[in-house]
């Protein structure tokens, strides 16, 4: 009979701290669990007492990888609380900035963190010697997305120029033209990227779950919209608690969530499952090349879905530049709040999935705050996937089990720093 004890204490190549613990005795699975040992930083507690103008700058520090996403969700929560309707120009610039971050985060995950698994190495560093053109391509895409974020937000990580009701800085028409040309030029790199990821031997594993994302009828939703699930539920953002239902476990500082089932999944694959029709035609072509169409139920394919989303964001980015150039871009004073007291929720579907910020303000000061980040929403589903996968691979060598489990967790692109950080597989 099989006896396996694995403890991946400090799982690496995820953006955060977590452990995988597996214990199989005589073929019977005693333990198969994912733990978060991250030191949570408790933003919900210490944003109380801060000014409404500072919340987006403070909460961007929840995550240095999705800082634009956190800042944008934070701004939308504040704006909904204080009666601020951003201008068309602001909405377009925020979308373009968001696309930049999504490309940046996805290239980091797919090229730097996932690709090494398929190339049989422990990190992107050895690829500099063996697959230099792959590394150089990733660096080119990363430079483009970073420059795009900096053009709008003033800098890439922890954007500066985003504020309640608008921006404090605007790209020039020439900067927009140059950026649009660079996005057009990036199509060649994306074509090669799609072709590369289409050749990767994605592990086989199917487990259907509930997929949760934002949705808009007229565009692939990243900012605002309604919350939808693949089980047929739909809620306005203000009713996000009906989806998240956070619960606590004594052995983890991260909170868990559940909706219609014991677990649900958020992120690129969930978004594509719910919003495939809204993808840009070129992104749909990329999906076809990668063999992706709804309903995707292999969690490993979340990384492939990210490649499709990168294509979408480059194409949509080109179109947003067009719209901004056609309508003209000019400095605008940020929209003034109608009130300084009130409650509001904001939501963005950031690289790792749907994210909620919810604030109560009294006289411009935050008195209550709630932030629900994507990775927390995925915990229960990561665990359910692990428990479904383990019996299928239990007879394989321990190193293969370890790698399969680590790859599964990495596919979720968990940003444990969000919650509140390191993956360890412990075969105990």
């Amino acid at each position, binding site marked *: 009979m099989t006896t396996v004890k694995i403890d991946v*204490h*400090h799982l*690496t*190549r995820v953006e955060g701290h977590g452990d995988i613990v597996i*214990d199989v005795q005589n073929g019977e699975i005693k333990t198969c669990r994912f*733990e978060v*040992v991250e*030191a*949570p*930083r*408790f933003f919900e*507690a*210490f*944003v109380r007492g*801060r*000014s409404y*103008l*500072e919340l987006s*700058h*403070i909460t961007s*520090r929840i*995550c*240095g*990888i999705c*800082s634009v996403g956190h800042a944008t969700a934070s701004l939308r929560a504040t704006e909904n609380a204080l009666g601020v309707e951003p201008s068309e120009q602001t909405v377009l610039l925020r979308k373009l900035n968001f696309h930049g971050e999504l490309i940046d985060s996805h290239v980091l995950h797919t090229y*730097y*963190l996932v690709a090494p698994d398929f190339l049989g190495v*422990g*990190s*992107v*560093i050895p690829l*500099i010697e063996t697959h230099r053109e792959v*590394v*150089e391509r990733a*660096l080119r895409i*990363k*430079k483009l997305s970073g420059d795009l974020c900096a053009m709008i937000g*003033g800098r*890439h*990580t922890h954007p*500066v*120029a985003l504020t309640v*009701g608008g921006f*404090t800085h605007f790209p020039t028409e020439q900067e927009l033209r140059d950026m649009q040309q660079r996005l057009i030029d990036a199509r060649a790199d994306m074509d090669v990227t799609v072709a590369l990821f289409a050749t990767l031997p994605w592990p086989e594993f199917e487990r259907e779950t509930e997929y949760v994302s934002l949705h808009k009828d007229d565009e692939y939703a990243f900012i605002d919209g309604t919350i939808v699930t693949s089980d047929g539920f739909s809620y306005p953002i203000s009713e996000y608690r009906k989806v998240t*239902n*956070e619960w*606590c476990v*004594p*052995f983890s*500082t991260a*909170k868990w969530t559940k909706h219609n089932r014991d677990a649900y999944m958020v992120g690129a694959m969930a978004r594509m499952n719910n919003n495939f029709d809204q993808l840009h035609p070129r992104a749909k072509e990329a999906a076809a090349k990668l063999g992706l169409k709804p309903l995707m139920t292999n969690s490993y394919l979340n990384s492939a879905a990210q490649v499709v989303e990168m294509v979408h964001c480059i194409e949509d980015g080109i179109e947003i530049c067009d719209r901004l150039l056609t309508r003209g871009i000019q*400095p605008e*004073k*940020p*929209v003034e709040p109608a009130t300084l007291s009130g409650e509001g929720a904001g939501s963005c579907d950031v690289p790792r999935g749907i994210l909620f910020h*919810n604030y109560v303000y009294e006289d411009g000061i935050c008195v*209550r705050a*709630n932030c629900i980040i994507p990775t927390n929403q995925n915990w229960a589903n990561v665990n359910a996937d692990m428990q479904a996968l383990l019996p299928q691979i239990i007879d394989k060598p321990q190193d293969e089990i370890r790698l399969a489990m680590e790859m599964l967790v990495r596919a979720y692109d968990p940003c444990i720093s969000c919650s509140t950080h*390191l993956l*360890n597989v412990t075969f105990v």
Partner: protein
Amino acid sequence: MSHNGKLKLGLYWAASCGGCDIAIVELREKILDLDAAAEILFWPCAMDFKIKDVEAMPDGHLDVCLFNGAIRSTENEHMAHLLRQKAQVLVAFGSCAHEGCIPGLANLFDRQSIFERVYLETPSTDNPAGVLPQLSTLMPEGEIVIPQLYNTVKTLAQVEDVDYFVPGCPPQAPQIWAVVEAILGGALPPKGSVVGANEKTVCDECPHRREEKRIRRFYRPHEIIPEPGRCLFDQGIICAGPATRGGCGALCPSVGMPCRGCYGPPPNVIDQGAALLSAVASVVDADTEEEAARIVGEIVDPIGTFYRFSLPSSLLHRVKRIENL
């Protein structure tokens, strides 16, 4: 140095957002030069190394360890001690390790009230049984132990001996590269120095025009379109530039947003918040005490503004008495 002549480098994150690791990735094509010059032996965000691999290293095995993140838990502190032992040069990298940064605002509260807020009171949390994280939980398969969270957020230097400090939230890529070059060239300044920055203030590198400041009122951003090219502080917008070390290139004021102080205090200043308070007090244009109080009263959330990034490393360190908000 390793056998191939490369610098042996370790990178670690404690209580942080990952932005400092992204800042390393932001070296972009220079990362290829870094790879040519240095062997990265430990970088949990990007590479497959386990803690036991670090524990197995001989003492002083790493030439340099760039340590980012604040010290929030027993695990963070344990890693600080371990990496100090394994690294010849320990660098507090980024604002969290350097001065506590934004997570350090938690020092305005205590652990108990934070736990109650996060695990019991948050409106989305369904926790009727009042379950709080426990140091030790007995599960059917055995005992699960998680790190203990401290009552107070600490900087790296508050728990370990630090050789150098790299400021910034996050550190800016050109400055990181300058530090890497200094390390490779053996051109590091005396121990305890702030590196990857300069010896001036943000104001000294800010492109905006400064005049004689006399402030009669402080503005919130939506109340004013700052006149382009003119000092934000002069226009009544609180800017931490005068109380902040230069080196970032005055990124924030350059895009119309006031500096919030992430590069820490300038040389010879111990308490950044006190320095900013002093800068504010010296420009208030009031004839009477009442008028001065009115003008200063317009500053929203003074402690969160003056000590945005530096509360744990400040003379205040933390609030001593918690009152209901």
